[in-house]
């Protein structure tokens, strides 16, 4: 048992009860269906902008060349154009590969003592695999949900849903991305619980979003395949939200409000948590700067004018004394020497 994840699990259960009891017993449909979702989206957008601007105010005076390849130098040494980019183009390509395929995570290694005291490094790809499965399925799920927010629904969304439902199991059909999402997020959670080193560095702020996303996924799957809700009513509500004519349809099940509340909490929590790596990745200096420190002079933007005492000034100040004790000087005391000697 670990306080961090018990605490996170309990918070998510409390959230569930809040929404469930709030709708079932107290009839707070307007609160959970209209007010909280609006507040959540406003918090999400405003919080995101606030945090990103805050990052943008921090000067990054130096290029941080934590790179995985040969820097561009002499013409006969082959540079790694993407892994150690010296141009904007290279940076853009590195960023795209990072965002879409988690390239640096792909190189993740595990450091272990084996056979007693032998230190070994091993390529650790499971985290990458879990992460890529999680993020891509999450994206698919998010895009798929746009069918509830736009009208008429464009055919590309219908195509996506068709591809996602390629298993054609049951009615309504099981959607692949939903299963992958739930499996991946559970894997990412178990990893934090079972690997001692990872558990040691895991905080409540790591577990809470995982539980919240597990809650979102489970409530969604339950709603689609088991408890069932009136989907037409759901779309009536969501379209009301995006057209600023909020409306609570009569008999949408409370499972839907739980789902919506989980998503609202996730959105509101997003900008103030580690989840903001969505924006942070674009702001990270080790990813968004070209390594051109040797070619271009980067001036520290917070430099105040530093008063320097150059060697010339030093010699001017102490020339006589230096000459007196026989130290070599760059500029002899040509005209004044004779005067002084006299």
């Amino acid at each position, binding site marked *: 048992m670990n306080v961090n994840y018990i605490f996170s699990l309990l918070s998510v259960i409390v959230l569930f009860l809040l929404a469930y009891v709030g709708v079932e017993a107290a009839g707070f449909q307007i609160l959970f269906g209209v007010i909280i979702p609006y507040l959540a*989206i406003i918090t*999400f*957008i405003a919080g*995101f*902008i606030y945090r*990103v*601007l805050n990052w*943008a*105010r*921090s*000067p*990054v005076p130096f290029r941080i060349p934590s790179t995985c390849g040969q820097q561009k130098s002499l013409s006969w040494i082959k540079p790694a154009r993407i892994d150690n980019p010296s141009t904007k183009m290279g940076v853009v390509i590195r960023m795209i590969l990072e965002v879409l395929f988690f390239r640096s995570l792909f190189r993740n290694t595990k450091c272990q003592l084996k056979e007693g005291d032998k230190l070994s490094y091993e390529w650790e790809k499971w985290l990458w695999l879990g992460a890529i499965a999680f993020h891509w399925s999450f994206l698919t799920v998010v895009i798929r949900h*746009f*069918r509830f*927010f*736009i*009208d*008429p*629904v464009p055919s590309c*969304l*219908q195509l996506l*849903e*068709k591809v996602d439902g390629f298993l*054609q199991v*049951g*009615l*309504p059909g099981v959607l692949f991305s939903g299963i992958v999402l739930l499996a991946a997020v559970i894997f990412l959670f178990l990893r934090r619980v079972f690997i001692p080193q990872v558990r040691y560095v895991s905080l409540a702020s790591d577990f809470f979003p995982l539980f919240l996303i597990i809650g979102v996924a489970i409530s969604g799957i339950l709603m689609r395949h088991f408890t*069932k*809700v*009136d*989907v*037409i009513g759901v*779309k*009536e509500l969501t*379209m*009301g939200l*995006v*057209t*600023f*004519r909020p409306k609570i*349809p009569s*008999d949408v*099940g409370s499972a839907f409000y739980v789902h919506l509340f989980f998503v609202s909490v996730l959105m509101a929590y997003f900008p103030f948590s580690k989840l903001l790596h969505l*924006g942070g990745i*674009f702001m990270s200096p080790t990813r968004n700067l070209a390594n051109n420190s040797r070619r271009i002079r980067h001036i520290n*933007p*917070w430099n105040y004018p530093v008063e320097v005492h150059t060697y010339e000034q030093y010699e001017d100040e102490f020339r006589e004394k230096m000459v007196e004790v026989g130290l070599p000087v760059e500029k002899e005391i040509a005209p004044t020497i004779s005067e002084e000697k006299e």
Partner: protein
Amino acid sequence: MGNKKQIYDRGMVVAGLVIFVIITTFPFWYNHGKASPVPEPELTDRAKAARECVEPKSVMRAKHMQLLNVWRNTVVRNGKRVYVNSKGKSFDMSLSNTCLDCHFNKAEFCDQCHNYASVKTYCWDCHIDNPKEIK
């Protein structure tokens, strides 16, 4: 320390944030504040005469696909064709011959809802969508 108000790489940062806002507010501007009316599936005279669907309306509304799935599996796998509903009434388990017998206005009934919720059923690849065509 430096001037904390200055935003470095202002152009890039602002461009990125503008893209972010455009994407996240997509549903709010894409619909121009308009939504098509909520579908009100039309009942045919035959359905009206029957007064009741296979199961109560609220059940049908949310769970008709699950019912159809049960029907499909029961017919195709077990060869049984008679469904007895919660009130003890029997129905022939058939998509085209039962559902579309009462709801023969598929376009105004099934499709109206399905278009609204962007549901694409592949059933009609094989099943005849209008029983009148059966000779």
